[in-house]
């Protein structure tokens, strides 16, 4: 986990697992669970729960169990995997329960943000404690009825059993159990006794997602709502020189045109104009009819300038990060050495559901419906913006049409709150795909410079990796320290290999006014391309097999070595490859998991390179739902192939040149290689799922292309169409 990044995202004050179980069930709709929650206030005074309450579990007298999932479902399967942790310990079959989405409320549900691949790994112990505490309370209640010791009772499938095999259902017991103190340190199951964790399980949201009934943010509607479509300063900093809204106002359905602004944390607010209409189409037509002249900065940013600056800055030493042995000396003395530079582009996140938010501000209260990765952070920002206490915010969490880091930034939430307050109505802000593609925040690009030397046996003796990149924490939080103490900016460079003489350094680069933020796997998505490509270059420089070369680097790390060896075995690395094909390997460790790919490429009849096959091995410790984990790896592969082979976001005159999927293209089904995924089996604590398999894909691909053509591609995206 990235502590430095998470510390900004984490807003929860809850340290211990709180728990409340209920004794009655009041009907509630999927997005209105709060009606029931008041019932559990009775447990507020309970010491172990403290002032905050985590009402995850509802048990009806009939025995029906409802579990509230604390985090948003952005596609990564939390709607199944988080309730699963509770259900396993509680002793109910996860397929028999009802799952409901919690509201954004960290006083009740703890940390609700989804980022850093931490949904399961970050709450692995806590959510199981929630279930285990409830199980112990139910056992204690049953033991009292039978006059036996609680330790002599066990649970199975919603029932408590005694040693005579008599049983009582959870529904019979819940009223008594709710009066008991909540155990402070409930005993967790031994992983070998897990009944459900570790087995492929169907996701309960899937049926709703195949029949159109899953409600996303964009589907939310309330009485009296108006739509807002917004034109924001295209160069991020230029102010409005002139505005003519006559044509926009004459569009049928347009109600108003108002000046507003885009808030984005510590950044200077961005001037904007909102078109308000009684339907989306009218608002969109209104936006297109706006005549705005924007101020152009004296020296507008361009991609060329950004990368020239990166290269200029790279001449400096930057800040030393990791250091081991003596790089300078060993490098100077070595006879076989190599240097190379790699370039990574800016990218957009492009979740398929464009950003949107419905907000209704009424006096000092606000109700929000927002597809978000950070309900807690949004609540904090809205409270600050409207100057109201967080308790006055009712935050509904619909299904989210993809996140990838974009929805860690709630600029669209503040836009909706600002407009609703100004207009005195519920306002739904809708971003278009053009807004999403051109406005960022973007995955920052970078330049990486590497130097390496081999010893007489052809093993890696010395390596220096220099990263020239913007700091996301500086851009968003004004974190000045991050300019010289890069922390997670250097991920995952130092996290795998044992290199005797090793140095990393970071050179801060400012890209103001481009808004930047975290993109799936963050800096690992850029650094790993350079690092794992260069490891390949070093292997080749010494005439070594790229797999054997890495094998030597991992020789002292039994667990990671096993992953690499499994990859060689599953991909058939030892076997001769077919005529006219190339293959490449790369492996990284980030977000708590180790992932490696072997990519195979060939030339088609027109001489163009195509990606034929990807073989993947991941060690993520205990995997709570292997089928869903696999889906995340599939997603990482597709997103990484898109980033490697499709389009960059480039800038000219301070404006992004790509604006929709025709020029910011995505990989499609006809370009899919054959994918084979293998998951390591072990009982280590869970690592991340959503990101770790992304970083090693692009270098494995570049290494395969080198293997086929002898040409080293050091810049992404690569163009294989010519």
């Amino acid at each position, binding site marked *: 986990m990235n502590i430095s990044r998470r510390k900004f995202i984490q807003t929860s004050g809850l340290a211990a697992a709180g728990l409340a179980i209920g004794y009655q069930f009041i009907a509630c709709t999927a997005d209105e669970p709060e009606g029931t929650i008041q019932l559990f206030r009775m447990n507020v005074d309970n010491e172990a729960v403290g002032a905050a309450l985590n009402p995850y579990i509802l048990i009806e007298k009939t025995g029906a169990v409802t579990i509230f999932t604390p985090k948003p479902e952005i596609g990564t399967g939390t709607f199944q995997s988080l309730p699963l942790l509770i259900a396993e310990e509680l002793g109910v079959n996860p397929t028999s329960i009802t799952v409901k989405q919690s509201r954004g409320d960290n006083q009740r549900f703890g940390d609700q943000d989804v980022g850093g691949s931490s949904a399961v790994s970050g709450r692995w112990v806590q959510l199981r404690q929630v279930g285990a505490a409830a199980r112990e309370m139910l056992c204690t209640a049953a033991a009292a009825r039978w006059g036996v010791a609680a330790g002599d009772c066990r649970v199975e499938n919603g029932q408590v059993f005694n040693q005579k095999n008599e049983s009582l259902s959870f529904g019979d017991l819940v009223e008594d159990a709710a009066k008991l103190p909540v155990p402070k340190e409930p005993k967790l199951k031994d992983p070998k006794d897990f009944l459900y964790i570790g087995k492929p399980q169907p996701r309960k949201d*899937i*049926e709703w997602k*195949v029949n159109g009934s899953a409600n996303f943010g*964009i589907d939310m509607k309330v009485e009296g709502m108006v739509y807002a479509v917004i034109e924001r300063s295209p160069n991020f900093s230029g102010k409005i020189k002139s505005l003519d809204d006559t044509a926009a106002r004459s569009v049928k359905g347009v109600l108003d045109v108002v000046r507003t602004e885009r808030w984005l944390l510590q950044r200077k607010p961005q001037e904007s104009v909102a078109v308000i209409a009684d*339907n989306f*189409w009218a608002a969109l037509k209104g936006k297109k009819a706006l005549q705005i002249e924007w101020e152009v900065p004296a020296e507008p940013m361009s991609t060329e300038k950004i990368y020239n600056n990166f290269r200029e800055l790279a001449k400096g030493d930057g800040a030393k990060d990791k250091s081991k042995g003596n790089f300078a000396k060993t490098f100077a003395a070595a006879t076989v050495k190599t240097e190379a530079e790699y370039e990574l582009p800016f990218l957009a996140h492009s979740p*398929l559901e464009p950003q949107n938010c419905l907000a209704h501000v009424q006096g000092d209260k606000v109700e929000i419906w927002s597809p978000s990765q950070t309900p807690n952070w949004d609540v904090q920002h809205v409270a600050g913006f409207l100057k109201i206490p967080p308790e006055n915010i009712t935050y509904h969490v619909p299904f989210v049409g993809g996140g990838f880091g974009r929805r860690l930034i709630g600029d669209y939430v503040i836009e909706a709150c600002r407009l609703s307050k100004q207009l005195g109505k519920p306002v739904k802000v809708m971003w278009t*795909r053009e807004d999403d593609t051109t406005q960022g925040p973007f995955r920052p690009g970078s330049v990486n410079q590497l130097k390496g030397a081999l010893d007489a046996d052809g093993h890696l003796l010395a390596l220096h990796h220099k990263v020239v990149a913007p700091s996301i924490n500086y851009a968003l939080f004004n974190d000045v320290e991050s300019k010289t103490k890069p922390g997670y900016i250097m991920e995952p460079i130092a996290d795998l290999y044992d290199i005797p003489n090793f140095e990393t350094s970071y050179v801060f680069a400012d890209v103001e006014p481009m808004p930047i933020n975290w993109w799936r796997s963050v800096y690992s998505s850029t650094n790993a391309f350079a690092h794992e490509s260069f490891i390949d270059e070093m292997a080749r420089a010494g005439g070594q097999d790229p797999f054997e070369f890495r094998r030597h680097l991992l020789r002292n790390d039994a667990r990671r070595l096993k992953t690499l060896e499994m990859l060689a075995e599953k991909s058939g690395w030892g076997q001769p490859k077919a005529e006219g094909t190339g293959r490449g390997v790369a492996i990284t460790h980030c977000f708590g998991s180790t992932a490696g790919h072997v990519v195979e490429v060939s030339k088609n009849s027109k001489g163009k390179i195509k990606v034929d096959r990807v073989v993947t091995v991941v060690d993520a410790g205990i995997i709570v739902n292997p089928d869903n984990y696999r*889906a995340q790896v599939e997603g990482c592969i597709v997103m990484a192939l898109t980033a490697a082979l499709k389009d960059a976001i480039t800038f000219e005159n301070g404006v992004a040149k790509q604006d929709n999927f025709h020029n910011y293209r995505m990989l499609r089904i*006809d370009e899919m290689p054959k994918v084979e995924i293998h998951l390591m089996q072990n009982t280590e604590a869970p690592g991340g799922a959503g990101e770790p398999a992304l970083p090693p894909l692009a270098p494995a691909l570049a290494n395969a292309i080198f293997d086929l053509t002898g040409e080293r591609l050091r810049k992404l995206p690569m163009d294989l169409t010519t």
Partner: protein
Amino acid sequence: MSNFKLSINGKSYQVDVEEDMPLLWVVRDYIGLTGSKFGCGIMQCGACTMHLNGEPVFSCSTPITAAVGKKITTIEGLSEDSSHPVQQAWIAEQVPQCGYCQSGQIMRAAWLLEQHPKPTDGQIDEAMSAHICRCGTYDRVRKAIHRAAGVDS
């Protein structure tokens, strides 16, 4: 504003909207069927795919005037109870991640299977490459289509 009579999922509706309003927004904002999604607005992503007289269309770019007098089918009308073979195959293969692209993909896959009850990989590529899935569910989409066709992939 004009008055349009529409037939959607076997029911008749009357709406009073601008003539240039795309079918997608009429169905989502006026009829209240929100299963069809907006992803790009320019026929690139397929999230808005519906059937017009059984043929798949990008409803984001189909003016309402082009839908009058035709049978409109949305994801909500594909089956009453998620029982269409494509929906069942999608559940069996656990295709959706975020799910946002899936209504559109399912509508095209249902049409594809009517054209080619046992589609080849090439036919799947040709039809389904009209769609973008940012979550990357393509491998499962292919498997689910083969499954719905009763063919092992």
